[in-house]
């Protein structure tokens, strides 16, 4: 006969010295662990509750401007800094870590309407209602913390245009920048005092300009005739124009999928489009209750942040119909501009109450250095929460947000109105011949027409 019995020697399973690590044996057999799903569910519930306990997204406000903040710009080569321009012509460079002003650039006579930084991060371009485009020197990263050098606060150059400018944007890879003013879009070079090129389509004023991150020669503009126009610098005429039912305030291109862009519209929604096929929107992002003023994509291309006239900042998934997060404060008034930081961890909002506010992109994220074990635990909690997020108890906790009363009421009102309109449409359809009233998808019915 052959006999064998389990025999374990204690040395194999205990440590030799007290400064050794304890030994761990693993057996992943599911039979050893009973009721795995119930345990995971309890962990998901606890993870959701802890999420809410640690959700403190507001980091700080940057105070200093004397008038509303109208525009902001990120420096692509320096994570810690952000530029902001206000309605009284003052431009400030902020250090996000200390939340203090590093440089103050004064020179504009009227409101600063647009700010952008050149590709190499050395030159700041600003434009304003005083019909000027000014170029400023950006201090080096090492020189950011040093005292103000008065010679750096004067502009390198100042170019005068024919009418007040409303937006400016720099190519992602190149030397040109575009300004929007009056009813034309001007293309400038750093060293020329006159625009290199001018585009015009129709007589409506152009409000905002954005260059495409992938194709340096393509840019999109929005106009007061409720249009979104796409231009190609290599041709001499504009490419496509899309007219919607309401005006678009701002556009942001998806940095990871450069053919897609999202437009922040006056009718409280954001519309994502594929620039190659503008017949219908890819996705409609609905959640704001008042006009959406500004939009910016995260560098991961998976999320974008919007700031709206209803005093809130919302973060959406790139393909999600509803927001995943909303930020609001009693002191924050109308939000005019938002930016996602270049490391995808922070969101900066500039608002009517002269403050810039710094928020976390993920409200319950632990900042600072995280140990590998902590990181693994966070990842596990995230994964187990996502596995059970559709169950009612967990969903209720994850979904819960405190909204200011006016926004909550406005949301209910909008929903009631939309339901009533839908009911009416259904009834009209029920009383008409079948087929005489085709259903229009939301992604299409906000587009009036498309022009080549």
């Amino acid at each position: 006969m052959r006999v064998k019995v389990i025999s374990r020697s204690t040395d194999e399973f205990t440590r030799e010295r007290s400064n050794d690590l304890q030994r761990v044996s693993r057996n992943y057999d599911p039979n050893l662990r009973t009721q795995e799903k119930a345990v995971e569910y309890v962990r998901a519930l606890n993870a959701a509750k802890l999420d809410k306990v640690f959700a403190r997204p507001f980091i700080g406000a940057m105070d200093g401007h004397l008038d509303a903040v109208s525009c902001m710009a990120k420096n692509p080569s320096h994570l810690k800094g952000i530029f902001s321009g206000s309605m009284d012509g003052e431009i400030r460079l902020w250090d996000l870590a200390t939340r203090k002003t590093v440089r103050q650039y004064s020179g504009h006579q009227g409101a600063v309407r647009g700010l952008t930084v050149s590709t190499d991060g050395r030159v700041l371009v600003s434009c304003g209602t005083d019909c000027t485009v000014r170029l400023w020197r950006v201090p080096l990263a090492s020189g950011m913390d040093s005292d103000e050098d008065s010679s750096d606060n004067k502009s390198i150059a100042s170019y005068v245009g024919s009418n007040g400018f409303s937006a400016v944007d720099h190519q992602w890879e190149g030397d040109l920048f575009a300004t929007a003013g009056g009813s034309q879009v001007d293309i400038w070079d750093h060293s020329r005092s006159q625009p290199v090129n001018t585009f015009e389509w129709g007589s409506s004023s152009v409000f905002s300009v954005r260059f495409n991150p992938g194709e340096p020669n393509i840019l999109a503009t929005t106009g007061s005739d409720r249009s979104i126009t796409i231009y190609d610098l290599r041709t001499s005429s504009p490419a496509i124009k899309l007219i919607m039912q309401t005006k678009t305030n701002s556009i942001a291109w998806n940095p990871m999928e450069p053919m897609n862009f999202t437009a922040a519209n006056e009718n409280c929604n954001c519309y994502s489009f594929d620039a190659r096929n503008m017949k219908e929107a890819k996705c409609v992002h609905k959640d704001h209750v008042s006009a959406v003023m500004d939009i910016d994509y995260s560098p991961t291309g998976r999320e974008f942040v919007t700031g709206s006239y209803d005093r809130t900042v919302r973060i959406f998934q790139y393909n999600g119909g509803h927001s995943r997060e909303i930020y609001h404060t009693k002191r924050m008034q109308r939000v005019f501009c938002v930016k996602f930081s270049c490391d995808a961890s922070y969101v900066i909002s500039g608002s009517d109450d002269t403050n810039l506010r710094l928020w976390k992109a993920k409200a319950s994220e632990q900042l600072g250095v995280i140990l590998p074990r902590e990181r693994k635990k966070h990842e596990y909690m995230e994964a187990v929460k996502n596995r059970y997020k559709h169950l009612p108890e967990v969903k209720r906790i994850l979904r819960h947000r405190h909204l200011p009363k006016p926004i909550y009421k406005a949301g209910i009102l909008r929903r009631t109105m939309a339901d009533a309109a839908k009911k009416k449409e259904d009834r009209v359809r029920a009383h008409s011949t079948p087929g005489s009233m085709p259903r229009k998808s939301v992604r299409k019915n906000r587009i009036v027409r498309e022009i080549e």
Partner: protein
Amino acid sequence: MEILDFSDELEVKVKKYQRGEAANLEVLKDKKLKGQLADREELFKKSANAAAKAEKWLMQTEAGRLEADGIEKTWRFDQHAIAKEVDVASRKNQFDLILPDLGPYTLDYTASGRYMVAAGRKGHVALIDLHTMKPIKDMQVRETVRDVVFLHNELFFAAAQKKYTYIYNQAGAELHCLKEHGSALKLQFLKNHFLLSSINKFGHLHYQDITTGQMIGNYRSGLGRSDVLQVNPYNSVLCSGHAGGTVSMWKPTSAAPLVKMLCHRGPVTAISFHPNGHLMATAGMDKKIKIWDLRKYEAIQMLPGHAKSLDFSQKGLLATSTGSFIQVLATSDSQDYSRYMIHTMAKGYQINKVLFRPYEDVLGIGHSNGLSSVLVPGSGEPNFDSWVANPYETSKQRSEKEVRVLLDKLPPESIILDPTNIGTLSIKKKKEKRTKQDLEEEKEAAVAAVKNVHLKKKTKGRSKPSKMARKKQEGIEQAKRSFVEKNEGGGANKKQKRITEMSDLPVALLPFASRKTS
């Protein structure tokens, strides 16, 4: 050939880690959801493969086995023969503690298999560390002790004494006196839920949460006195066996049992559950030991013999004991349980309880003259997981584990018969619309039924042939009429008819056209 075998083995292992079949994604119409679920399934496959491959390196210890050569049978080998072939350390696990005065002994092991608590009926309670074979605490409670269980670790145990149930700590200090349980006959501890359950001499079940001290459930079984209580480790459902031969399964949140099965023709004497949750072994006074499949509630095997105590091991071996005789049954490839090993004790010994020791090839026996322990090769799981149960735990690891297990404590509502149902959709069955064919068939069947009815012959000229024929016709028309009224398609046909008739009217007036013209 070898390569094939290896991949087959891998297949079997991967199946074990996959925890069920992949979902059928063909029926989904939502493309986004389909893509997301397909990604998930890929991930599950990958992780199952990785776990199967890692098994080779992670499984340090080999399982035990007992194989007979040629025409020998495995149950011919007794403990002496096995002891000769085995190493010294394992021979330590075979012992006999002779304690003749203090009544039949019952025992319990901790989940890691390192500590054992034994209690004699006359009040002797001992806590023993089986690695060092030293008694940690030896005490006399001076009362009848009917049952002992460990709570979540070796620091606490509960004893069902004459009138009440008491919780003691490792030093022997009495921590709690649980009066509500009454005179409990059997105790069971639900590990994941921290519930101490008992059945008392009136047949009342109690569930108490030992972390808060709250009594969660207190139910009358309604089936009289019962001293058979076992918890199914797969789904934490409590089972009690009754004098009428029924086995009832309970959960803490309902007063009525989940399941009542008629298992035996006489009182049920013992129950035990296989760790995979599908098999249950029951023994009754009708000299039968039955193996039940709990998915179908059918007996798949019947073995002859009495059994005062039954226990399944981690590897699926079944130990039964009657009088002074123990037999261990094992499945071979035929999926049926057959005799694997036998152990007979001296004639006067009455065996009270058999219990397999976790993670060791050892069977613990509590009998009228003390405690014994015998080797059963192949019964224990050789490789433990430190984060589930660690026999080599330090006190720091033990306190960390306690905190972690408390964080993962399950609510008592989570006890359901099928624990894999959590997180799944509950689909409401839609009433299927009967097709036209179905209706036709039903109509014909009803008409045929009416035709077959035999009309009673009446006297005094009331059963004239013409009258009977008319009555039959009326019956058939009645059956057909009920179908015409029920027919849903009739309404739509009517409407269509109306519209086609009105097609000469302009479109705008169609909704307002009167129905009289139809």
